[in-house]
């Protein structure tokens, strides 16, 4: 207040800006965001390291970070890790592809035509609420304990959700886009392929990205219960031998894999739908 009149507004702005560095919806610098995020990871890592180093917990319940790292490194060098990874990656790829290949056309169909919606949506909505876990025994009965059963569980876990979400993506296509197609004299089939699908595609991609995240969970579930290979299988076996370091290493690895696939899908989204503001 006492300074020259010229600098007073500047000071006031600075003060106002400082006051606005937190609060609902107030943006923060990217560097600051990253710093906080990294700090949380580092903090948790340190806590883990300290808890095990100071022997607050027994290694059998929580092994040290170093023990987990060496165990994973050992499994990587003797090839076990890669075999597990390959088996799981194969299962999730096929299971997810089957679910998506069916859910996209069905979702588009029931999002576009009311009678198809009436025929399919209530049924799917019903099945969606049946717990996937409860299908595991049935899936083993139907498909044994091989890869087919893994596909089946991934399918049950993702397909029904995908169908409903894709239906929603399609319904979000602006009505005037369809009106445009009709005023151009396009038949329904062309309106569907040239307007509705391209318009819903960014949303559908997002649905796939989200459901791929869930697919990891269903994969591991299926492998935990009945399998002879895969990441989930290794976790079950390790429990038998009290190899907690393998279990924790694999859980961290699964988290990392989920994160990576999500980031890859997001990156692809930017490439594929670059020009699109998503909605206008």
């Amino acid at each position, binding site marked *: 207040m006492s300074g020259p009149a010229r600098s007073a507004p500047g000071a006031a702005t600075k003060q106002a800006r400082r006051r606005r560095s937190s609060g609902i919806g107030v943006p923060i610098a990217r560097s600051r965001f990253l710093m906080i995020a990294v700090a949380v990871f580092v903090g948790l890592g340190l806590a883990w390291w300290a808890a095990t180093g100071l022997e607050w917990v027994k290694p059998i319940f929580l092994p040290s970070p170093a023990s987990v790292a060496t165990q994973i490194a050992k499994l990587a060098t003797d090839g076990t890790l890669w075999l597990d990874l390959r088996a799981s990656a194969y299962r999730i790829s096929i299971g997810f592809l089957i679910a998506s290949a069916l859910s996209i056309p069905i979702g588009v169909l029931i999002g576009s035509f009311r009678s198809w919606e009436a025929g399919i949506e209530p049924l799917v909505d019903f099945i969606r609420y049946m717990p996937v876990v409860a299908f595991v025994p049935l899936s083993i009965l139907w498909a044994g304990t091989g890869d087919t059963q893994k596909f089946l569980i991934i399918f049950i876990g993702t397909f029904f959700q995908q169908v409903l979400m894709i239906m929603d993506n399609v319904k979000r296509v602006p009505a*005037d886009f369809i*009106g*445009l197609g*009709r005023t*151009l*004299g*396009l038949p329904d089939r062309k309106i569907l392929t040239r307007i509705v699908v391209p318009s819903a595609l960014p949303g559908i991609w997002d649905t796939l990205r989200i459901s791929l995240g869930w697919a990891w969970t269903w994969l591991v579930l299926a492998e935990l219960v009945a399998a002879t290979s895969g990441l989930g299988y290794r976790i079950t076996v390790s429990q038998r031998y009290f190899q907690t370091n393998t279990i924790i290493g694999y859980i961290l690895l699964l988290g990392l894999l989920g994160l990576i696939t999500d980031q890859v899908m997001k990156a692809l989204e930017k490439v594929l739908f670059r020009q699109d503001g998503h909605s206008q």
Partner: protein
Amino acid sequence: MTVPKLRIAGLDKSFGTGERRTQVLRDINLDLADNEFVSLVGTSGCGKSTLLSIVAGLQDFDAGDLSIDGAPILQPGLDRGVVFQSYTLLPWLTARQNIEFALKAAGYDRAACREIALEHLDLVKLSQSADRYPSELSGGMKQRVAIARALSYRPKMLLMDEPFGALDALTRHHMQELLTQIWEEHRLTVLFVTHDVEEAVYLSDRIVVMGIGPGRIMQTFNVDIERPRREEVMETPAFMDLQRGVHKAIREASRRPEMA
């Protein structure tokens, strides 16, 4: 007697069924002459958009006759170009591709599509932005592309539903000038919906005032203002008188009979 470009005769339209059935349009009679620019004005909810979309063939109607050049309107078609209020540019296509999309639907070959699209972008003064995506265009630019698209395949008439309604005042003025200029040069039958009376007077040959409850035509004004019209015409007494007259008519027309 010549056949009008567009004939709307005894048109009725209701929404809903049973107890909730309400009549939105009652006994609409309106003829548009060849190359006539007609505006529909009226309070919101009086059925302007409904009428336009019936003419576009996007909605059905209960009773009446609709024809273009004497041929009944049964469905949407390329003989009527439509410009919607929302920017209906497909976001995954560039400005030029959006126009080519319509031309392709109209059956033009590749080379012709490109040439005609560029020609029409030039018409709306957007040649520089041919390869930009809608997300990179302002609202006014998007609507210019939409107009170019609707004109590109040479429809017999143009239907526009508050095309400038979402634009700021200054952009709206530019668009009105551009549209008048294009129209005066190329001439086309236009049915134009707006709630902006100044816009209606500036653009039209004739203004149709609609009333509410149910929507019907209350009054018609001929706009005998000389063309070509430039912005200055809005300051003339004749223009302002007419504007006042239309305003008054809308006010009177929007008093619902049951409220009077």
